[in-house]
């Protein structure tokens, strides 16, 4: 009985120790392997941007960003690199049109189409809680992967291989 007690105690310590290594800021997405949520926004160019635009029968990237978010500017050149092989769509969260416009003029525009999420409701529909966040969507319109935070050099290999495997 005493040994059983010791065993339970040590298991608890082990579980606690393993738990300490986890990053509490990383919240697993609830949308993985689900169909993309439906939405309808005005696009940057003034047309309509909806979930139908994302069902293109090809692998695509959807990036939530804003010109007021500094990590988004850091991520921008890596997104541009990815954009050579895959179409990138963007949803700008709570971004004024003219601010976004000058940001894109300065850094370049890797996006095929940008939706303007002025109220932030579409971002909530997608389970976005911080910017930037990036989704990889497969040919059939299912969400396959979510990257939280800026895509940096160290993430490129992983993201490229996920896209390659889905193609």
């Amino acid at each position: 009985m005493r040994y059983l007690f010791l065993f339970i105690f040590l298991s608890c310590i082990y579980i606690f120790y393993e738990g300490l290594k986890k990053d509490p800021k990383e919240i697993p997405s609830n949308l993985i392997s689900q169909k993309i949520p439906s939405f309808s926004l005005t696009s940057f160019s003034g047309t309509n941007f909806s979930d139908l635009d994302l069902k293109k029968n090809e692998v695509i990237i959807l990036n939530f960003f804003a010109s007021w978010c500094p990590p988004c500017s850091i991520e921008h050149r890596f997104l541009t690199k990815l954009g050579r092989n895959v179409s990138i769509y963007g949803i700008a969260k709570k971004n004024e049109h003219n601010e976004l416009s000058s940001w894109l003029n300065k850094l370049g525009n890797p996006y095929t189409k940008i939706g303007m999420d002025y109220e932030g409701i579409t971002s909530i529909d997608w389970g976005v809680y911080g910017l930037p966040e990036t989704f990889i969507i497969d040919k059939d319109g299912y969400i396959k992967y979510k990257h939280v935070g800026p895509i940096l050099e160290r993430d490129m290999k992983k993201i490229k291989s996920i896209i390659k495997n889905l193609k």
Partner: protein
Amino acid sequence: MTLIFILLNLIFFNVNAIQPDEILENKELEKTARDIGKELRCLVCQNEDIQNSNADIAKDLRALVRKKLLEGESKSQIIDYVHSRYGDFVLFSPPFRIDTIGLWILPIIFFLILSFFFFRKK
């Protein structure tokens, strides 16, 4: 005097991050909105509910809860919606499921084991 002031503050000053312009006119709905707000965890600030958080996402969620209430959705519908978007993390009380059963059962088991050791006759 200072002590009394602090104590009075603690008693009457209910800390809420909610801004005056967010409050709904309908008192009943506002009460429901606050109840919902207390059950949803702010996603970026670790262990703070959206009712008491100043983070942007908490503000957005508060606005969304109120919008959905005005559209006639019920408390459980709204909580289910937010849960479906953000997963278990967003709920302050975890759901009772196979994979979360340990959270609910283990404390009771530990309590029973400890009481057994404590009250056992030598």
